[in-house]
């Protein structure tokens, strides 16, 4: 297939004059633009993001993100399966915090069903959401440091993440693809002594977090690379629909956990860190503080952990009965059969629900015509909006700043492409 092309070099003497001419052109300040393609498979793009850039020397003049390399048609798949069957697919949206996605999805569908879950279930969900936030921010912080050239922080944060994944494994049976929630509850109750182990993790985690953030927060090189870089104004952040830590770093005081409380976030005491300048450094600082606040939230919930059922017991048309009842009682057997074959019986309606996930506001728009299958399920991935701001903020920066800007936005392509 390969063809050898012959290139006529012509008279070397004549070419020498041509080259000299071109060099003079490049040096006269007008500048010659060069196109540069980064990705879709490149370590700094954190997945399969592709950037098409125009460079003038070392300065980026135009940046166009190309997405869709991880598009799996999740929304189409959702229209073809029952509500509970879709839970594993939500793991694969923001695959760095699957537990938080599970919770948000279940809550969106429960809102459609008009279902309330008992306090114990809410507490479990709140705990796993915050643990997911810690795990996601730890990765965000670690690889961000690595993008800026600081390797060591990454080692610390990954060690902590490993401990978290051990806790997730004990709770859900899986480290990454947890699929833990069900419509109307969770897959199983927390194991004996699990809360103590979470507490023990938190106790040893805080000193390590302080040690790790000291590696970056006052690090001269890190400061030089992040301060004043990738500034997003308040207005831009709102116009582009940025959410989560990226929005708060720009000085907008908005956190769905505070402003539109769910899962009993209104009963716990925590602060929402706000940035002032909206640069890469602020986004880092906001995430570090959110880690501390998450620990604070978790301690309060664990100290006051409710007893009782961990799924909506009266939701017989939605939540599967207990396993031991299924094999001993006829009514429960039929109920289970109907749920498995036809799916939960949902009312018709439209529901849009967003929750504060680690990467921002993850939204589900569920359109139901009744029955066990969603008619349409739209997923609003926060990373999609975070990336759409790139063409606005990147031009004018040096090429080497791109890695830092990408790292600071803390996106994940799984929920961007869906």
């Amino acid at each position: 297939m390969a063809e050898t092309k012959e290139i006529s070099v012509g008279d070397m003497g004549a070419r020498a004059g041509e080259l000299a001419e071109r060099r003079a052109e490049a040096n006269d300040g007008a500048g010659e633009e060069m196109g540069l393609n980064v990705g879709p498979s490149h370590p700094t793009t954190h997945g399969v993001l592709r950037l098409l850039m125009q460079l003038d020397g070392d300065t980026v003049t135009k940046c166009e993100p190309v997405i869709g390399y991880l598009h799996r048609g999740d929304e189409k798949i959702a229209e073809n399966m029952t509500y509970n069957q879709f839970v594993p697919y939500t793991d694969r949206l923001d695959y760095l915090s699957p537990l938080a996605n599970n919770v948000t999805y279940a809550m969106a569908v429960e809102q459609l069903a008009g279902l309330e879950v008992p306090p114990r279930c809410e507490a479990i969900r709140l705990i796993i959401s915050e643990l997911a936030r810690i795990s996601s921010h730890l990765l965000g912080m670690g690889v961000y440091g690595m993008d800026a050239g600081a390797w060591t922080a990454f080692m610390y944060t990954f060690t902590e993440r490993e401990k978290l994944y051990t806790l997730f494994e004990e709770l859900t049976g899986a480290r990454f693809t947890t699929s833990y929630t069900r419509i109307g509850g969770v897959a199983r109750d927390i194991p004996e002594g699990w809360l103590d182990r979470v507490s023990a993790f938190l106790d040893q985690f805080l000193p390590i977090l302080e040690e790790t953030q000291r590696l970056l927060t006052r690090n001269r090189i890190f400061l030089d690379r992040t301060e004043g870089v990738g500034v997003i104004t308040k207005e831009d952040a709102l116009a582009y629909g940025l959410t989560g830590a990226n929005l708060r770093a720009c000085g907008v005081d908005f956190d769905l956990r505070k402003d539109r409380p769910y899962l009993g976030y209104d009963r716990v005491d925590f602060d929402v860190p706000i940035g002032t300048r909206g640069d890469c450094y602020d986004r880092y600082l906001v995430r570090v503080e959110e880690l501390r606040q998450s620990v604070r939230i978790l301690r309060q919930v664990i100290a006051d952990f409710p007893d009782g059922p961990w799924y909506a017991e009266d939701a017989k048309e939605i939540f599967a009965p207990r396993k031991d009842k299924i094999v001993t009682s006829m009514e429960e057997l039929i109920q289970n059969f109907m749920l498995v074959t036809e799916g939960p019986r949902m009312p018709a309606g439209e529901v849009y629900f967003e929750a504060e996930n680690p990467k921002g506001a993850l939204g589900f728009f569920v359109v139901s015509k009744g029955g066990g299958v969603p008619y349409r399920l739209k997923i609003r991935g926060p990373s999609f909006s975070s990336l759409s701001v790139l063409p606005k903020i990147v031009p004018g920066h040096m090429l080497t700043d791109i890695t830092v800007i990408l790292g600071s936005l803390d996106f994940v392509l799984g929920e961007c492409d869906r």
Partner: protein
Amino acid sequence: MSAGEGVDSGPATGTGELLDSLGPRFEGLEPRPTTDHPATRCRAEFIRPLLKTLRDEYGYLMLMDVTAVDWDEESPRFTVFYHLLNPKTAQYARVSVDCLDDDEPEVPSVVSLFAAAEWHERETYDMFGIRFTDHPDLRRILMWEGYPYFPLRKEFPLAGIETELPDSEVGEATEAKVLPAPMMGGPFVAQSGQPMSASEPRGRDESWTEHHHRPEDFDALEGPEQPETLEDRSGDKPRIED
């Protein structure tokens, strides 16, 4: 018009309040049945002034999501949904616009109001083929440029449709194509309100694989029904006597 009066807008969603003040200003504004957020239907020509009013006077500064729903057989076939957020009060609002033309759906773009709309509208165009007029750069975003179908339309099969590779040179050299996924074994879909045999979960429209070929007359078969259900079998000659 009687905006929001006597319409069941769900428990305390605020649709009525919003419509009472907006209704007189925009012709054809109707409440949309909802249980969570204030929701309104709007005519396509008013979408830009309505969203501008909501942004500038009602504090809905953020456009969180733009998407569409394909109602299949119904007309209007496509409805575009906008979800707005007021970050001060943490209130959402839903605005829907029906596309008048079922074959060439079109809606005015709101990119001039919300920068976020640029990508969201591109995605909606990519998935449903709805054109957003005056969009600065309406291209596909998730699928590749030149892809011939709109995957989230209801007639598009879950397995996909055979297509040329995005790179025509590679396609010509290798003769490879994008092939429909084998669907035997799922994902499953259940239909409620039908006989039990029909409601057992099965792959909706793709029960063929590399080994089981697609039935020739598949398109003539009705909807999700499979050729072999319990009823079909019982309608045949009694098998026991064979």
